[in-house]
């Protein structure tokens, strides 16, 4: 096999992987903290892409990258505070069901506001072109994406490990009741984490927009894969989401040149196996 082909696929795998890592990181924080699988996570990813699209057409790409997570994160905060918090008393089943309803609302909402047809944006002028690798040119934009994603991941890690808020969040993932007992407003914490979680998904969507374009249902496949990553990495484990995300990205990329028919099946088999044999995943503790 052509070595530069493999090298390209590895790089592509990393590009894919960091996107999965970002989305999964958001999902795992929500899962770990609120104890619910956010089935609408992919929809927020899509929303992020679309918000970025609008921001880009009016104010340029850098602003789009800031606007997407802020706007979508804000939406997430509102939704959690108004609805998901209120359902907490009724139990997780209702909260999970609510996120299911959200998918319909957000997806159709996107189609109504921006239209159902796929849209595309051009790669920002400063990032066009590529770096030569063997016979092929690897796009600068993809390198940029990896760099930004890595920066974000490092930032989130810093917040989680180095700040007081991060410590409270980590404690809340371990034992929300304890955090409540020592006097922190756990409900407010949940809302913050939900907003931050979907914000991460949103910025991933914004980053992907110039590469893949957008369409209302773009979040569906990613949603499913994010759950795989979160399960494999460990529910509530940020490190797990990152490692798992990159792993899944690499596996997908490499399988596409080795055994293209089986990649998705293999991934869901892996998910099922982990759930059965080691439900806490690679890094999880519960």
């Amino acid at each position, binding site marked *: 096999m052509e070595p530069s082909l493999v090298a390209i696929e590895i790089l592509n795998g990393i590009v894919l992987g960091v996107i999965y890592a970002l989305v999964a990181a958001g999902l795992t924080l929500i899962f770990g903290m609120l*104890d619910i699988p956010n089935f609408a996570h992919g929809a927020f990813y899509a929303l992020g892409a679309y918000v970025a699209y609008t921001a880009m057409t009016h104010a340029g790409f850098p602003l789009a990258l800031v606007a997407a997570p802020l706007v979508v994160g804000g939406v997430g905060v509102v939704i959690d505070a108004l609805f998901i918090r209120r359902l907490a008393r009724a139990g997780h089943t209702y909260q999970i069901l609510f996120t299911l309803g959200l998918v319909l609302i957000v997806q*159709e909402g996107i189609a*109504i506001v921006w239209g159902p047809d796929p849209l595309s944006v051009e790669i920002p002028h400063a990032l066009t072109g590529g770096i030569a690798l063997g016979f092929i040119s690897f796009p600068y934009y993809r390198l940029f994406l990896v760099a930004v994603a890595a920066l974000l991941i490092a930032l989130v890690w810093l917040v989680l490990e180095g700040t007081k808020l991060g410590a409270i969040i980590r404690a809340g993932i371990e034992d929300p009741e304890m955090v409540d007992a020592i006097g922190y407003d756990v409900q407010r914490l949940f809302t913050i984490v939900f907003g931050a979680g979907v914000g991460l998904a949103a910025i991933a969507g914004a980053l992907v927009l110039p590469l893949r374009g957008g369409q209302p249902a773009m979040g569906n496949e990613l949603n499913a894969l994010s759950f795989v990553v979160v399960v494999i990495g460990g529910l509530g484990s940020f490190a797990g989401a990152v490692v798992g995300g990159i792993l899944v990205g690499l596996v997908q990329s490499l399988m596409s040149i080795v055994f293209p028919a089986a990649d998705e099946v293999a991934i*869901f088999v892996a*998910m*099922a196996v982990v759930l059965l044999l080691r439900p806490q995943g690679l890094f999880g503790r519960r």
Partner: protein
Amino acid sequence: MRAPRFAFFVLIVLIAIAPTILHYPDLLALALIFGLLAAAFNLLLGELGFLSFGQAVFNGLGAYATGLLLVHVAHVPILLALLAAAACSAAGAAIVGLLASQGAGVYAVMLTFAFNELAYYLAFQLRGVTGGDNGLRGILRPTFFGLDLSNDVAYYYFTAAVFALVFYALLRILDAPFGYVLRAIRENEGRARAIGYDTRRFKVAAFVVSGAITGIGGALYAMLYGFVPLEVVDFTTSTNIVVMGILGGIGSPYGAIAGAAIFTLLSDRLSHVWSHWPLLLGVLFCTVVMVLRGGAVELVRFRGLGVTKRA
């Protein structure tokens, strides 16, 4: 069964006269099929307390089993086709049930989701068997003891008859000792074990029943359209089933029927009027979820459309 007997009678009458009110026998048949799917989902959620996000797997097993049988084998009696569907989906459900009952809480729910995705991609890849993206085509509707079912109204009444029988059986199951054990497991699995019930076996059995009913629905679907699209095993189908079940009210099989009917008829009518009707569905669904959680809070307390919960 005292009060339920009356409700069942009313249901039968409604089903019998429906084609004279709404002249869309295909749509009505679809509503009944979804009714079976929703009732099967309700068995797991409302009775056992288990949120199954993978009912489409059993639907697909039933639809493909029937479809393949009718495409590749000549002169298959229609009842055999139904039986084969039920058997295949029951087998699949036994496997899923065995594995899902091992996990606790949200892990088990995620497992059903994982199996659904797995089944979908498998169906997609096994193009030679399922037709992949294009679907399984060329399914001919068999006759029913000589009766030609190619007429839509005739097929509607066949579907209705199957529906009535299956639904009746479900009602009996729910009122039988088995049903009472399921509800006890839902309420307090730990105590159910402590008083001697092998809760795992009951959970698997519940899955098998739910799977079989779903599979029959899938079979009827395959014969309704003569074609099995990949969507039958899609996660979206699973979520549609969840939506139907919730809309009608968990905790009552009649609620499930109502939810399925509302969903089917509304989505058909609304899709002609507004292409973005799923937004309304989403809003309605979220509203129902928000409203349900009030008051007594527990899932089972919801009185789905006037038919009260037994036990």
